[in-house]
């Protein structure tokens, strides 16, 4: 087994009296997909923000490529090749695809006051890079707002890959997507993995996680509830753990009773 590219050990994060994360440990290897599963409020968002450098952990160790690191902004993590794609604000709808693709990392030509955005290169590269990911683009000039949700996610992933991401953190990329669109995104996750990129895939849907994941980390109430490789856990058990097994059984009994009673 190769060394993990990214690893956190006993991370804790507090907001005032609230314990958002407690003693969370997880790791990621290059060319693998680690799925981070958890229901709403499990601490997924906080963990992503710690991993992507938005929050500093209050306790614990963050290791990247074998050495201990500490980040003060998302820019720091980006510079080291850790790219985060947020599901809600991945793209700017009114801007064209090529402007979005290079936003924040524009290629330039010329010198001094005449240094300018290399527009032709940007348009050409956008088309090529999306092509490599299997996304066939018609017109790089069209506003991102005209793309569907899954396509936007795909463009955002392609962008992160192009800018040399070694680790991709995907925050619920399949949430709010239809079945087919989610499939499109899952395919790009596998593409990224095959190109040797480590992917942390955050989701609350085990059916999306299971086909692409190598490794599953389940968060509950701010703590690690389970940590499995794919051959250790079948899908059914993952679904059960995700939903909090016992709670679900109680709920289904209650619902059955209500149904037998003929409703209120």
């Amino acid at each position, binding site marked *: 087994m190769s060394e993990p590219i990214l690893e956190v050990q006993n991370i804790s994060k507090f907001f005032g009296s609230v314990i958002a994360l407690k003693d969370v440990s997880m790791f990621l290897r290059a060319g693998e997909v680690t799925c981070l599963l958890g229901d709403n409020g499990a601490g997924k968002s906080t963990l992503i923000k710690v991993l992507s450098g938005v929050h500093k952990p209050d306790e614990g160790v963050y290791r990247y490529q074998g050495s201990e690191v500490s980040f003060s902004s*998302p*820019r720091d993590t*980006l510079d080291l090749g850790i790219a*985060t794609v*947020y599901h809600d*604000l*991945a*793209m*700017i*709808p*009114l*801007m064209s695809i090529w*402007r*979005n693709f*290079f*936003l*924040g*990392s*524009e290629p*330039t030509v010329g010198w001094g006051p005449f*240094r*300018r*955005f290399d*527009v032709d290169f940007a348009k050409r590269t956008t*088309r*090529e890079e*999306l*092509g*490599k990911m*299997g*996304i*066939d*683009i*018609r*017109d790089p000039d*069209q*506003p991102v*707002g*005209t*793309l*569907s949700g899954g*396509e936007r996610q*795909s463009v955002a992933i392609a962008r992160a890959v192009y800018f040399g991401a070694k680790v991709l953190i995907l925050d619920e990329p399949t949430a709010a997507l239809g079945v087919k669109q989610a499939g*499109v995104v899952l*395919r790009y996750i596998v593409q990224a993995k095959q190109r040797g990129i480590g992917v942390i895939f955050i989701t609350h849907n085990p059916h999306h996680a299971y086909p692409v994941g190598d490794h599953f980390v389940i968060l509950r109430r701010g703590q690690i509830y389970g940590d499995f490789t794919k051959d250790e856990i079948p899908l059914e058990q993952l679904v059960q753990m995700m939903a909090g097994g016992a709670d679900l059984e109680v709920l289904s009994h209650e619902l059955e009773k209500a149904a037998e009673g003929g409703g209120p």
Partner: protein
Amino acid sequence: MSSLAVNTQPAQAAADERIREVGVLSRLMARPELGALVAVVVWLFFAVVAADNNFISWATTAAILNRAAPLGILAIAVALLMIAGEFDLSIGSLVGFGGMAIMMLVTPVEPGGFGWTILPAIGVALLITLATGFFNGVLVVTTKLPSFIITLGSLFIFRGLAVAVPRSATNRTQLGGLDEVSSYGPMDAILGTKLELFGARFDVAIVWWIGLTIVATWVLMRTRVGNWIFGVGGDNVAARNVGVPVNRLKIALFMTTAFTAFLSALIQAFQFNGADSLRGSLKEFEAIIAVVIGGTLLTGGYGSVIGALLGTLIFAMVQQGIMTGVDGDWFKVFVGGILVAAVIFNNFVRQQATKR
């Protein structure tokens, strides 16, 4: 309608069968400046109504452009700032403030000024005005309050200062006599002079206006900073997440509006041979109106500097048309009507552009 397709084959670059030839009209519809094409209609309307008053003549053209230039210079920076999603309501006050700063510095010690020569006075007044823009910008990015409120405060603060400081020092709110200061001539030649062309007199300010429009358009469309401006206006947080220096950009844009206010004040100081504390009143709204007529969204992320130029032109043409052909009392009614029509029209155009 989906615009991407998932293929296992790599994309074919040329001759894509899914690209439909779109007509000239729908291509135009995607441009922010389209709203300002209404300019042509307005022009024709007043040309007909005021035909006997020589509306279409070199003299009238000069009158319109001379009227438009000082406002147009402001509208350039206001457009950039609005595309980045912020407002600057203090820009009109800064015109008064900047003008009085120059005049306070060159006014002789006797009535209460500093008695400086022209160049150092312009330099220091520029720095002071840029500092006000810096103040606006820093306040907006640190408090994260709407810039509308912050600069509404600045509107009163700087107008108040433009009245109070000269009055307490010189007992006046109008300072003249710029032409008596040494080395007035060369500066007047580039800022206040009039150019004789086709038998009409054009202010040199028009050259500044058009020149700055070209520079600003280039910055917006063809530089990194331009891409950042669109990005920040489209989505502040997303832009920050991909590494755009959002705060520095916004502060720089507030300083740009302060700079154009100063340039406008400087040009008018040479044109009118002095400054008035109340100069630039209501220009903040006129600039926003010009920019919005030019197709820039109030919510940011979309717009153009060329549009701001056209919007200013419409504003000035309506004003001139009213002056020459129609009763001046109706001017505000027209401007308000055009503004509302432009916003409705631009909204419609944007929906068409993003829907397809």
